[in-house]
């Protein structure tokens, strides 16, 4: 066990626990407006015990919104990372194992894909697709599958020269079976590490899209939208922007530490994510 793995694991576990229990733990409906309690500070800063972390400019409970926001962040992170892996890994396997023209063409496509800045592509997609949680997931997958493709293809390229792969080929296994039965099991550690790192990225992108108003619908509490909302009354109180920012930073650092900790534990030689 290393420090990164423990710290990252704890943060992610806590986040998961809060997201899972959120609907029962949350003291209020996240969208319920209490217009008599607008921009109430957290309880330790002179607020009301009914709203432990204060309220926003519509009198909505920040704690409840943060808890529901954690669900959004985790659902988006887990599903977009899994789907990006589901596209990126097969592309990487085929490119790395087949080599030659197939590899060249696939990797050119990846290069071109990566020459459009990720943020810009995600924003463009959301602008044409419209708002929504699953559209955010789709946008992140479209942008980020290349991260898996590029890194894993490099490993697959190295693995295919190893003896056990040659042996499998010599026995007459079909390319598809060599890829799935021989290459893939050896690539799992890297896939897991990249998935964890991708979850950090996805949490950040979801927050960013919701921050600029191109993420989930306004009725769904999201940290990014909360940050944007809190920014509007920053001069009145720090909590509206500060608390969701804190949650976001904890989540991205947590997933990142978990990914790096896993890398050190599973295989210190593994390449870093591009």
């Amino acid at each position, binding site marked *: 066990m290393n420090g990164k793995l423990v710290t990252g694991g704890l943060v992610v576990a806590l986040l998961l626990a809060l997201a899972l229990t959120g609907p029962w733990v949350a003291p209020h409906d996240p969208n319920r407006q209490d217009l008599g309690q607008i921009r109430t500070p957290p309880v330790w800063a002179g607020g009301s015990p009914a709203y432990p972390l204060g309220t926003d400019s519509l009198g909505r409970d920040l704690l409840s919104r943060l808890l529901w926001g954690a669900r959004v962040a985790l659902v988006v992170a887990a599903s977009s990372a899994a789907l990006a892996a589901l596209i990126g890994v097969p592309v990487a396997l085929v490119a790395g194992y087949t080599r030659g023209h197939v590899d060249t063409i696939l990797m050119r496509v990846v290069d*071109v894909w*990566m*020459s459009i800045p990720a*943020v*810009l592509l995600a924003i463009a997609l959301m602008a044409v697709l419209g708002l929504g949680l699953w559209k955010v997931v789709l946008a992140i997958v479209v942008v980020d599958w290349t991260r898996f493709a590029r890194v894993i293809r490099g490993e697959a390229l190295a693995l295919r020269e190893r003896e056990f792969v040659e042996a499998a080929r010599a026995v007459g296994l079909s390319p598809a079976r060599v890829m799935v039965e021989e290459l893939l099991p050896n690539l799992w550690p890297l896939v897991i590490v990249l998935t964890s790192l991708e979850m950090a990225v996805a949490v950040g992108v979801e927050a960013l899209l919701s921050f600029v108003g191109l993420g989930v619908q306004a009725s769904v509490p999201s940290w990014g939208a909360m940050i944007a909302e809190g920014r509007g009354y920053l001069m009145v109180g720090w909590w509206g*922007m500060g608390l969701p920012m804190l949650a976001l*930073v904890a989540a991205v650092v947590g997933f990142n530490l978990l990914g790096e900790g896993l890398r050190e534990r599973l295989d210190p030689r593994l390449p870093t994510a591009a």
Partner: protein
Amino acid sequence: MAPSVRFLATRLALGVLSLWGVSVLTFVVLRVVPGDPALLMAPVGSTADDVERIRRDFGLAGPWWAQYGAFLGDLLRGQFGRSLWLQQDARRVILERLPATFELAVAALILSVAGGIALGLVSVWGRRTWIESAGVSLGTVGIAVPNFVWGLLFIVVFGAFLRWLPISGRVAPELEAPEVTGSALVDTLLRRDPAAVASVLGHLALPALALALPLLAAVFRTVRSDLLGALGEEYVVTERMKGLGEGRILGWRVLRNALIPTTTLVGVQFGFVIGGTVLIETIFSWPGIGQLTLEAFQYRDFPLIQGIVIVYGIAVILSNLAVDLAYAALNPRVGLTS
């Protein structure tokens, strides 16, 4: 053909290919809209005639291959069409705003490379002390937190509470002067106006640092692990036996070797810096094409958006090309063969 010429030619050809790919991707993304893109672009209250006019003006009428032909033809002539929102030539709008973005991105690049290397040297020099742990923590947090969050944090801490630095625009309004080069810093330096230079640097500081931090952290970590690895190598041991001080060893022999992986890293990551300008410019009211991007989306100004995406694509491709060249220059053995 000399290897260096062939290397350059291959890279250039790949750049052109990437650019074509970017144009295809832009064309496709803006046309796979569920529903009618012309309808999406039309302002609220448009008549059927208005929608038809938009469809024609924007080249959305006819079969897709004819549309793509017209699109590519315009692109080759450097035309992006007319901005629906600003009612101006989209290319002109973009070119007017481009220097501000360029200045910000270059400042962020310099900050992240210089800052990352300096931090790497300091943390290795102070290893096994609090300096190292502070550096390592900063590296971990810096690499994970997206740059728009850094931007907001800086605005709160240095702009709103401490009031140390300005948080919007490029220069204090009273010091504004006509643009000459497009770079506010170069302009004020040319005018030899110290107050204006200070104002420009002050305005540049926070957005550039926010944009730079994730890359700065990545450079720091690469340089650090490289320096630590190199300290155990034979040539360093030899130099130490020759009586060279720690500072001299770290400063030159070892650092030069650490520059090669740093260059690769910057090449891979600089696209994120360029993309980061979209949010950072919006947050800091920086008048570049990043700020323009979100405005163009709000107004569903697709000709302008197309132009911006292409220009961003060109920027990433050119910077990749520059990194390839730097890599080849630093490491002649490796660079020219691939």
